[in-house]
């Protein structure tokens, strides 16, 4: 009699246990949103979030874009650029001051390889618009003469450009800033994890439902969109930003012009790099750095990366892939490339 009671108890216990396990391992909702913003395609994935959360995220993206776009009338950049040379200061909100300060810090740290004041040069080439063209040497030298981060004057709460024709272009840092803000937004909503993809700038946060490592691919510069040359397996949340020549470019008279300019000459930087991928805690850093490292070229860039704690990078040159020391064991090659040994 006692044995049968024990058996009954055990079976019921097993049933309860099974129920509990199934409850805890129940599928977490996955919600995704694809939208256009900041001149590119944005994919948002959230675990344990709602479409309302994604609506909020879309609105946040819209606000950031209308504040930092170069072309949207009334944006900070538009107003600052329009007031260049007038002598008047433009007031900054705390967020605007933060973005400009970070941009200037990275310009200083990379000795101008990342430069938020290349507006005159960028506008001249028109890459990304429907009328890109190769400017004349004279036009370019004038534009380079008006460009440069040192021209941005900042005082607490305000900024100005001192000469007519000077212009900010924050395209190289705004997506990074936006990704960090989106992460904060989702975390404040209590969303347990997700992936923010702003035109290929990837930022993960929280945890995946099954708690496994994030698998982030790196685009193969030689193949179509969506085809990786390798995969990063990451157990921590990290921003992965890639700068490459293969997406924004135009061809004139058989010559291809990409969109990452050498601040010294105003021409697309002469390089054998196809792409640079930067891993960092904050996406604003990865965004600015990916441009800077591309301009610096692999040798100088690798030295800079190795000196920055918490930052790692992957370089693609021809069929060679080079990794900074922090990526050892985290990257698996899947395309027909070879890893450079150093």
């Amino acid at each position: 009699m006692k044995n049968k009671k024990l058996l009954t108890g055990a079976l019921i216990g097993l049933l309860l246990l099974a129920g509990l396990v199934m409850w805890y391992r129940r599928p977490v909702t996955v919600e995704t949103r694809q939208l256009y913003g900041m001149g590119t395609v944005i994919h948002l994935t959230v675990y344990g979030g709602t479409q309302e959360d994604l609506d909020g995220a879309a609105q946040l993206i819209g606000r950031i874009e209308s504040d930092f776009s170069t072309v949207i009338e009334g944006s900070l950049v538009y107003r600052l650029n329009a007031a260049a040379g007038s002598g008047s200061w433009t007031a900054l909100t705390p967020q605007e001051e933060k973005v400009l300060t970070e941009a200037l810090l990275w310009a200083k740290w990379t000795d101008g390889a990342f430069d938020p004041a290349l507006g005159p040069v960028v506008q001249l080439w028109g890459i990304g618009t429907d009328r890109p063209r190769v400017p004349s040497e004279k036009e370019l030298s004038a534009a380079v003469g008006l460009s440069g981060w040192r021209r941005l004057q900042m005082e607490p709460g305000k900024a100005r450009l001192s000469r007519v024709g000077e212009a900010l272009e924050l395209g190289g840092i705004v997506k990074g800033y936006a990704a960090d803000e989106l992460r904060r937004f989702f975390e404040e909503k209590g969303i347990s994890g997700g992936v923010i993809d702003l035109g290929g700038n990837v930022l993960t946060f929280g945890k995946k439902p099954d708690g496994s490592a994030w698998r982030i691919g790196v685009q193969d510069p030689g193949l179509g969109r969506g085809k990786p040359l390798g995969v990063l397996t990451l157990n921590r949340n990290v921003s992965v930003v890639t700068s490459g020549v293969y997406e924004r470019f135009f061809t004139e008279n058989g010559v291809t012009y990409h969109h990452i300019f050498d601040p010294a000459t105003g021409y697309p930087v002469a390089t054998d790099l196809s792409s640079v991928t930067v891993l960092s805690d904050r996406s604003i850093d990865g965004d600015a750095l990916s441009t800077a490292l591309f301009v610096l070229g692999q040798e100088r860039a690798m030295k800079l990366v190795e000196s920055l704690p918490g930052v790692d990078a992957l370089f693609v040159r021809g069929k060679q892939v080079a990794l900074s020391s922090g990526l050892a064991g985290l990257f698996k090659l899947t395309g027909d490339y070879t890893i450079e040994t150093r």
Partner: protein
Amino acid sequence: MKRGDQLILGGTFCVALLCAALWLWNRNAAPALVAEISSDGVVIETVDLATLKEPVTFRIESHDGQDVNVIRMEPGRAAIVEANCPDELCVRSGWLTRAGQSAVCLPHRLALYLKGESDLDGLSH
């Protein structure tokens, strides 16, 4: 134990096993390969490429008829095959065959995206 009790207990146990089995089986079932066309961020067409029998062609025009993209879907693959945008980058993306791949026509705000079980959480480009 009475015979009736045995039956009830045995029956409950079997039902529990069945539920667990069904739940496990459902979790591992791989979703089909689905092609999604979205215009201006809104999904306008979804096609299950895994169960598609005959090729399908979609001609997508903007309201004023100025922007045109032609999308072809065949069993297991899809592509933007024609477009009258300036750079035709979308057409050059070629055939999409795996989940996570996409072809995007930025000037026309049109995207063709393959969904399914992809082993990547993101792709940095």
